[in-house]
């Protein structure tokens, strides 16, 4: 137990939380935009996976990380736009179309990897590139803060800067406000001349972009290879983070950090003498527990209201 506590309160651990939260936070922000636009993107998982795979393969081919990043992002946005086309133009059910994309991504990525390498598990045989890790001058020398904030992967910084950008976009720009209006009352938006379909394309496109960044981070930052189903449900945990975060950018960030902490814990505890399988469950159990707590808090609030009312009642009657 002592060991566990030491682990949690170390700078290395907090740095690990930021690292591990990144591939939840990025898709969560994307999912948030799509959700507020009224077209919640359940295909985050598949989009991440595809982007992760495309990034690695292109970085291998070009021996440079930047074309890999570009390829991942382009693939992600394209997939989201395909989803948008199926739903908005062909009127397919959004959830079903997204599930199809997830299944396609899971099988399709490993198929391509197999064709190129003959390996059905991962691309570890290939030499792929990683996005740069950034040492921030001055800050890196501050004790405690330095090791946490400095030296992270470029995409980790991008993720946290994206929180601010998404918040500004959603609440301060015309496009963001129109997008939220469309999500909440499409008829109202249409009646003032807002193009509902265009806004929903935008919402899904942006969600694809952010999810793709999360995917590229996984295979070209967090690790340096692509592995079968390496997203491991992060695209779905991201959806839970949106909900727990009260559908706001800042709340989503906090929820992503909580899930990141759970996962970082499971990684650290993996070094101790606890069965590995048990430890690996932590992020998923944490998601479930968080959702249950959320529901209980909501219920408790309702009960407190009733109780408060009853008290005022008895006081009134008693006096």
């Amino acid at each position: 137990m002592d060991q566990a506590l030491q682990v949690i309160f170390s700078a290395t651990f907090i740095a690990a939380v930021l690292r591990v939260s990144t591939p939840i936070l990025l898709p969560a922000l994307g999912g948030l935009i799509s959700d507020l636009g009224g077209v919640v993107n359940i295909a985050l998982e598949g989009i991440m996976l595809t982007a992760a795979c495309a990034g690695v393969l292109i970085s291998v081919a070009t021996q440079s990380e930047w074309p890999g990043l570009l390829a991942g992002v382009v693939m992600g946005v394209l997939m989201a736009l395909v989803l948008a086309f199926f739903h908005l133009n062909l009127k397919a059910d959004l959830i079903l179309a997204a599930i199809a994309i997830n299944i396609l991504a899971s099988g399709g990525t490993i198929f391509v990897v197999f064709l190129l390498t003959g390996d059905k598990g991962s691309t570890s045989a290939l030499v792929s590139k990683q996005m740069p890790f950034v040492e921030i001058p001055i800050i890196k020398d501050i004790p405690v803060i330095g090791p946490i904030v400095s030296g992270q992967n470029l995409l980790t910084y991008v993720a946290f800067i994206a929180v601010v950008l998404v918040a500004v976009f959603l609440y301060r720009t015309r496009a963001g406000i129109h997008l939220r209006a469309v999500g909440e009352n499409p008829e109202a938006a249409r009646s003032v001349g807002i193009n509902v379909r265009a806004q929903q394309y935008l919402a899904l496109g942006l969600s694809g972009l952010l999810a793709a960044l999360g995917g590229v981070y996984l295979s070209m930052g967090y690790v340096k290879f692509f592995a079968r189903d390496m997203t491991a449900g992060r695209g779905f945990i991201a959806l839970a983070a949106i909900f727990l975060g009260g559908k706001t950018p800042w709340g989503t960030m906090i929820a992503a950090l909580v899930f990141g902490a759970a996962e970082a814990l499971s990684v650290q505890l993996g070094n101790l003498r606890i069965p590995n399988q048990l430890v690996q469950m932590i992020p998923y159990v944490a998601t479930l527990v968080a959702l249950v707590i959320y529901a209980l808090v909501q219920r408790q609030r309702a009960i407190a209201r009733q109780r408060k009312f009853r008290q005022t009642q008895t006081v009134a009657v008693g006096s």
Partner: protein
Amino acid sequence: MPTASDSAAAPLIEMRNITKIYPNGVLADNDVSFEVRAGEIHALVGENGAGKSTLMKILYGMERPTSGQIYLRGAPVTIHTPHEAIALGIGMVHQNFMLVPSFTVAENIVLGTEPLRGAFVDKRAAVAATASLAQQYGLNVDPEAVVDVVPVGMRQRVEILKALYRGADVLILDEPTAVLTPQETHELFAAIRQLVNAGKTVIFISHKLREVMEISDRISVMRDARMVGTIDKRNADEHLLAKMMVGREVFLNIAKPPVQRGPVVLKVRDLEYATEAGVEALKHVSFNVYAGEIFGIAGVEGNGQTELVEVIAGLRAPLGGVIELEGKSIAGLPPRGVRQAGVAHIPEDRLTNGVALESSIQENLIVDRYEREPFTRGGFLRPSEVARNGEVLIEQYAIRTPDGALPVGSLSGGNMQKVVVARELSSRPKLLIAAQPTRGVDIGATEFMHEQLVKARNAGVAILLVSADLSEVMSLSDRLAVMHAGRIVAIFPTTNGLTEEEVGLYMLGTKTMTQAEIERNW
């Protein structure tokens, strides 16, 4: 080139030979011509489904006419989107509000044309613009309040300001008063007059002929997708309008034989309820409803009537008190238990609580009894029985539809309400709770509802009638209670000789009966 005098004589808006066939084949407007003069208040009336909203949506660019032409100041125009309508100075307030609930009043008003400061939306400018516009037209709103929590009357004003903000010269108001209290209606009319004084033109749709006679300069009447005619208010009266709308004589007065009061059916004592927000909605409410009588509850909306009805119907759990049906407690039972005990409920919000919009008319007619014989046997639904029952009720209650298998959502408001009434009355209840039974319903259907209520009463059903329409409750009820701030402040043993002014004083809370007086009339 038209001369100056020509263009002055040309009507501001002219819709010529407009026909609209919806993709599902409904002929909503059939060769309709309609003209509006600059600076007038022009009322458009007609029964549910006559095609009024469709005609106005065509003018506002939300629907395209199948054929026909629109002229603005004598020149032909095409209006294919709301955007184009707005550019031509036409604004519309829809029958169902078009607001974004989580946005503030100001954000809603500027939506789509937000003021910018650099790349960002200038919220302060939006608030300032809203405030000055509100001031200019005497439409009082709180620019920074979130729309979700502001009262209906204010939402209405937000919608009007929204149109004015876009520079509307012509304002279309589609049934603006259907959801308003008498006071709010009064304020709205004052605002409309101010708009006209400021040079605007107003098109006003309503089912309430008294309002139409009060506010409008000219009145156009539609029936069955056709324009019956346009008359000056001076030459019109309620009776004539009703006749033009329905195409036959309408009895605006309700004929009722004297009451044959039976035993107590519903007994309510000390009923208490608080909303989720902790507001005390019902405070020690007590009364009886007897078999064979209509017990009316009058009151300004929002004084606990909705909560009272929903608590009795089992949709909300009371915090305390007694609700008994023929001596057996039904307090706290779920809706099905309450129904099985013999209570029928015509809910005030038929769209959410009254019908399942996507389900068929037939299915809606059995949702309270689908699990029983003859509709279910051996655990399976029997579609032939459901259809047969549907046919009988559609015939009996004169529900206007080509096919009982169509979704209820395809019916006009009045016919939807008939579906609810048909289902509730055919369940042979001991107690019928009717909440706002004629809201948004046209004259013909209103007359029908009133007949049905009186018929049920004559057959010995106990009826609890709640309505914000004072003349309706006063003329239908045998006994009348008034609610104010969650309490019953008066119970009148008869409505004979009672005036609206008298009841109005109780509704506003300026007068209350003593507890002893009320108890005497329980």
